[in-house]
């Protein structure tokens, strides 16, 4: 098991590359996507029990063979067959009784049918182990591909394995998509244990089984399209040009990622989205929008709408500015969490709504509840700054701070360096005080208090 582990890690990595690119591949060249289907068939002792018209094992063989024949016609499908419980008798309780009987290959229907005829049902039901092993079955091609396991079983896990965990892990690593399970005559209680493994479908007889398998195939292979409409405030699908990510809802893996685009007709461009998964959709506006657990109906054109009304914001200065790279911290109104840092003189889109803006001038400028309106540019003009130059001609280190007069009170703005002979500080217009004393002075009353005024574009000098 340990030896296998390191080997499988390598295989996972190879597969990861294969699957991780599914999303982009589908968007780029949807016709070339290969679907690789692995039938994982139960060959445990119980499968020989009488069921419906004959016994479960025989019926399974017939139904799978017929499906293999029918899929053979689809050039984008490859198939393979893995069974469990076929090698060791029940009494041995072999928890590693599973092997790939027919490796996945194109034009494989005959191979599968021949193999089916040779199989006997004997042993136990090591589902987790079998699922774990199927990672190896999908190795072999790094073509863009969808890897799908269809588990056909009449019983629940009979070893210690945790098939749910294995399924999640393989999906997470991009080795398989969500598995499909068809339960043959399972009790509701037993059926429930498969919910966390994948999409479960129930068959109570042979006809039910055929139906279930057919609808599964339809689900997997039918052409499904999606249109993602990003709505403005009037409910029209005019918002676009923002990146969108579709995350797999089950395993939180990124499945599709694209920059939203309007087609030549001005409608949201159509997407090919695999309906096998449910998705959490993130629209990367500022702040981002998340729509959780979106399911895609198979074999039809799905329209998903997400309100994403945007407007633009620009912070700039009156007159000639000496600010460069000045940061403006944007939070949602009445919230403290920073959603973005906007640079002065750069336009940027935000979702419509109210924002608080903290402009990191000296002193800071706080602007509460600025409205970003649909398709409008909100411009915030701050006064151009002035400069104060502090000349320390005494060459004695100084301890000092600049304060702004605000009504009757003084607000701390910044400390001065005090060690340098010349220091220039960019300040917003206003009345200030420089409070300072020689660093070495042991007397508090030697504190000096110098007033100065800053106006836009001008400079003040203080000499000591």
């Amino acid at each position, binding site marked *: 098991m340990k030896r296998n582990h390191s080997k499988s890690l390598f295989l996972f990595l190879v597969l990861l590359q294969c699957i991780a690119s599914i999303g982009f591949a589908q968007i780029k060249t949807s016709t070339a996507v290969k679907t690789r289907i692995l039938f994982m068939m139960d060959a445990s002792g119980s499968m020989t029990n009488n069921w419906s018209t004959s016994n479960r094992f025989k019926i399974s063989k017939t139904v799978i063979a017929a499906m293999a024949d029918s899929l053979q016609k689809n050039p984008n499908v490859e198939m393979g067959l893995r069974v469990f419980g076929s090698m060791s008798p029940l009494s041995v309780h072999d928890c590693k009784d599973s092997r790939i009987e027919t490796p996945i290959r194109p034009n494989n229907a005959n191979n599968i049918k021949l193999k089916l005829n040779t199989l006997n049902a004997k042993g136990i039901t090591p589902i987790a182990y079998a699922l774990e092993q199927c990672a190896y079955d999908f190795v072999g091609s790094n073509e863009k591909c969808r890897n799908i396991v269809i588990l056909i079983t009449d019983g629940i896990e009979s070893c210690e394995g945790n098939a749910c965990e294995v399924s999640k892990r393989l999906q997470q690593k991009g080795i398989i998509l969500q598995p499909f399970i068809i339960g043959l005559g399972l009790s509701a209680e037993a059926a429930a244990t498969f919910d966390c493994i994948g999409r479960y479908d129930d068959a109570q007889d042979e006809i039910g089984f055929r139906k279930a398998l057919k609808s599964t195939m339809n689900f997997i292979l039918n052409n499904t399209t999606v249109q993602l409409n990003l709505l403005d405030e009037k409910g029209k699908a005019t918002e676009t040009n923002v990146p969108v990510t579709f995350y797999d809802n089950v395993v939180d893996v990124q499945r599709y990622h694209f920059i939203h*685009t309007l*087609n030549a007709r001005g409608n949201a461009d159509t997407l090919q989205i695999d309906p096998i998964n449910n998705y959490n959709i993130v629209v*990367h506006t500022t702040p981002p929008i998340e729509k959780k657990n979106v399911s895609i109906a198979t074999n039809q054109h799905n329209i998903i709408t997400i309100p994403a009304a945007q407007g633009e914001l620009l912070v700039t200065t009156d007159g000639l500015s000496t600010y460069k790279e000045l940061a403006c911290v944007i939070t949602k109104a009445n919230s403290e969490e920073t959603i973005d840092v906007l640079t002065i003189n750069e336009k*940027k889109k935000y979702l419509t709504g109210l924002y608080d803006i903290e402009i990191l001038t000296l002193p800071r400028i706080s602007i509460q509840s600025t409205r970003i309106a649909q398709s409008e540019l909100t411009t915030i003009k701050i006064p151009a700054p002035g400069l104060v130059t502090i000349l320390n001609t005494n060459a004695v280190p100084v301890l000092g701070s600049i*304060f702004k007069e605000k009504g009757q009170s003084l607000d701390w703005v910044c400390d001065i360096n005090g060690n340098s002979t010349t220091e220039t500080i960019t300040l917003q217009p206003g009345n200030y005080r420089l409070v300072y004393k020689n660093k070495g002075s042991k007397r*508090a009353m030697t504190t000096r208090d110098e007033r100065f005024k800053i106006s836009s574009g001008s400079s003040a000098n203080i000499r000591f």
Partner: protein
Amino acid sequence: MQELKDNFKSKILRNSFCAVFCFLFLLSSAHAQNKKIPTRLLFILDASGSMAGKWQEGSRLDAAKAIITHMADSLSKENISFALRIYGHQSEKSLVDCNDTKLELPFAKSTAANLSETLARVSPKGYSPIALSLEQAVNDFTLTKYECKNVIVLITDGFENCEGDACLAAEKLQSAGIFFRPYIIGLGLNSESKIKFDCVGQVFEANETANNFKEQISEVVISTIMNPTSLQVNLLNEAEKPIETNANMTFYDHENKSIKYNIIHTLNASGNPDTLFVDPQKKYDLKIHTLPAKEINNIELIPGKHIIAATSAGQGSLKMSINGTSKYKNLQAIIKQKNQIINIQNVNTTQNYLTGIYQVEILTCPRIILKDVKILQSQQNIINIPAAGTLQINKSQPGYISIFKREQNTLTQILVVPVGANKQTIQLQPGNYEVSFRAKNAISNKSTIQKKFNIVSGIATTANF
């Protein structure tokens, strides 16, 4: 302090080892005397027309001269030097001379003889340019090598009647190092003038009905000058020791909330919080500009006594440094406490904060958010920021570009590159990134190009679209 001394004295009397104790006591007080800073006193005498008004048998000016002469005599015993500036004495009232103010007797020449000779020449004439006199008084105190206590005593019968702002002039004295607010001796001030002088300094009124008015007023003023009311502000560290210092303290008038003084907290030569001399007539609200600020409200001084006000103000420091040479321009961090912005600190600087827990948001790309930054007493908390790497994006055509940080499987958009820019250099923190590009005029989602990058500190990466 005074109380302490009184207690001490009575104890001494009761004590059988009186002699020894007395000796010690005298020694220590003599020692304190030696350490006292020398005082210089500038008289500013009003010789405006109104000073010709009647005071007892003579004029107000006569009364003022008598007070000055008596005070100068007392001062010489206290070893206090004096100088004399006079206003309104040179030009007749009809000339409306608002520049009529002159230092008649500088500190260097102030002998009793010179004083009486100078005063004898003065008669009441012109206007009262009080503000101008206060402004010019700054230069009357010649610079000294040793520290001096500089005091102004203004003797007048009325308020400014030129255009000057005497309040502002008095306030400016502080920035010139004359920290004691002027003492004003009023000769028959009307109630309006008394209120106006409130912003200039502490007013004492001479009593016209007392025969010994000059002795009375001299004693009161001199004893106020010699035994100033004082205040000590203790900034306590976490061990309750008053060793925190160097923060500016703004004194607000408790009644009208106006700014009275700015004094930078200082430890004196003995390492104790230095004594502050502020107007004893006021109650103060004190704002200590630590980060965040501390307040002590409603401080009341007791005339002639030493009052101690204290607050906890334990501090530690926060240093942020970025490894290697930073290509960020002016990298800053937002320091918050309880969701309030306390400060914007530049990276590669050190700043003191009160002890406690802060949130630090460093404006790197992407931002680094640290929710639990502890500032401990007298300790420096150092945050090291990994050096950024550079991503250069080249576009062959205009298009939409977004940069995402990838953490596990989640993409977080951190930057949108302007559509028009065809070349952009971006500083990014080390980590995994993805860049999405789509040509501006593309009409299909499928035109999106996605590239993955690993950004390493100090290394430049190029992305071509």
